[in-house]
């Protein structure tokens, strides 16, 4: 099997020296501190010294949320310059003139730049497992969460790569990537609220399909479904849809599952568009016909 050479190169560069290890160590330290803090707080709240599942659920939720926020903030910064940076440094032509296909360049960049975040996520896995030891959380739930993380990271990465190929400057690309993310996370909620207000007469029990694109809704519904917690914003968004609690949306799929499907489709589309964009000689249908005709004429 051939491992993507662009990925290998980036891996080598990014992992060189102590910097990468230092970042991982620092990250784990912060996460551990958060976990300890939450556990400590919950312990004192309950005035109990016995191990309670509430404690681990609290720590789990805290860690999960922090890690999710981190993904939303770090991945754009790491991917939005992936291609525009090469263009600015004038190294893109040097790869494009090789036999490497544009899609390989794009996927190599994507895996390398989201990979760094994925590494942080994977490094945090033992910490989650420790929480798991306290009880209250199943291994399946942790796997679900990590699956959701990876899909989200790759999707945000694809958005970053998309802007990085379509815009000349890394700064513009970064702004648009964060902007798109803000739209998905908050803009869709605004649209949803207006929509509900106008067409559903404030019936918040409806779950609007547009919210399948919302990573926060997806993430929130995943946690809500894992702990049967329906309150606050979750109820507001009708996030309990599909979990059997909401009759209005009984046949709709869970927001987090819908979000994963949306993410996968969006990523594939964005990556294909990015590859087409950096391909200097992409063929139109017309060319294919022309060349076929020419081959035929030669025979």
């Amino acid at each position, binding site marked *: 099997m051939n491992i993507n050479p662009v990925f290998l190169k980036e891996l080598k560069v990014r992992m060189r020296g102590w910097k990468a290890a230092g970042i991982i160590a620092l990250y784990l330290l912060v996460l551990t501190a958060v976990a300890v803090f939450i556990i400590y707080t919950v312990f004192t709240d309950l005035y109990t010294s016995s191990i309670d599942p509430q404690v681990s659920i609290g720590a789990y939720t805290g860690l999960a949320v922090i890690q999710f926020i981190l993904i939303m903030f770090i991945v754009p910064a790491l991917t939005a310059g992936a291609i525009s940076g090469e263009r600015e440094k004038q*190294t893109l*032509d040097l790869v494009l*003139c090789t*036999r490497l296909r544009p899609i390989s360049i794009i996927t190599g960049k994507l895996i390398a730049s989201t990979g760094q975040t994925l590494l942080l996520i994977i490094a945090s896995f033992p910490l989650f497992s420790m929480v798991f030891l306290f009880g209250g959380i199943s291994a399946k739930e942790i796997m679900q969460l990590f699956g959701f993380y990876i899909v989200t990271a790759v999707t945000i990465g694809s958005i970053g790569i998309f802007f990085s190929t379509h815009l000349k400057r890394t700064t513009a690309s970064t702004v648009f990537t964060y902007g798109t993310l803000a739209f998905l996370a908050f803009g869709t909620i605004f649209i949803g609220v207006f929509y509900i207000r106008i067409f559903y007469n404030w019936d918040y029990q409806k779950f609007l399909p547009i919210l399948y694109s919302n990573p926060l809704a997806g993430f929130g519904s995943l946690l809500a479904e894992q702990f049967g917690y329906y309150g606050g914003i979750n109820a507001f968004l009708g996030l309990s849809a599909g979990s059997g609690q909401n009759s209005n949306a009984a046949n709709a799929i869970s927001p987090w599952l819908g979000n994963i499907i949306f993410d996968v489709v969006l990523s594939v589309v964005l990556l294909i568009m990015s590859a087409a964009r950096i391909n200097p000689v992409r063929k139109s249908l017309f060319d294919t016909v022309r060349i076929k005709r020419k081959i035929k004429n030669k025979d």
Partner: protein
Amino acid sequence: MLSIRNLNKKYGRFQAVSDLNLEIPEGEIFGFVGPNGAGKTTTMKIVCGLLRATSGEITLDGTDILQNIKGIKEKIGYMPDFFGVYDDLKVNEYLEFYASIYNIKGQERKRITNDLLELVDLVSKREAYVDSLSRGMKQRLCLARSLVHNPRLLVLDEPASGMDPRARFEMKEILKNLKGMGKTIIISSHILPELAELCTSIGIIDKGRMVISGSNAEIMQQVYNKKIVRIKVRDRLDDAVMILKEYPFVDKLLTGENTIQAGFGGGEEEMSRVLSDLISRGIPVVSFAPMDGNLEDVFMKVTKGDEEQ
């Protein structure tokens, strides 16, 4: 080996390359000369699949480059005029990265990297970061990079530009080596004499048009020993060409829109004879201008643009 027919490239409405034709047989070192903005880089990028032609046809070993772009890229090594390097890689890692793209692995990759470093005289820098190299060294490294997959055709865009004389000399020595290895090379420059001793054939391009092309000897003879006469007619260009062909001392005819570029073997007497013949046979000659035989002059003057206003 490489054949370019009626190549045109427009950037928006700006015509960067017009009706360019070129044949480069195997083993040839073709010097592509023209002032800045003449269209050299544009043409070379199109050949390497980095830019789409507006129209025209390019074939490599008889295959249209758009038909099998991946296969074509395996046969071509390209060195751009302006390029950057990955600042966080070492010299040997840099070459190994490009080798890995071509699926070259393990011992083979080490061997190729070593050979290339030796060829471009960078063995002592193998562990240095690419970013720390001097400009001339980077240029040599980039040349080595274009050779990792052992391409048959090298497209080198001003490989010696911006170098000091010593670095220029070193680059030239490397290119001579490559010539000895039997590579087919297209090399561009905006200074003709620089290419004179290296190239087997030369083409001069200006404002997107090929002004003269031919073997090195032909070009040099024409440029140094012969008068070049630029004839402009209002009409009946083809008839004028037919008449010129009747004279044995007139050769190397190059036609443009209502203009003919002709090499004259004779002196002034022959010129006046031809001119009066053209006029007596009813060719509407607008101008008949002999040009100085000086190399740089030809280069500066043999342009189409300044007559097309």
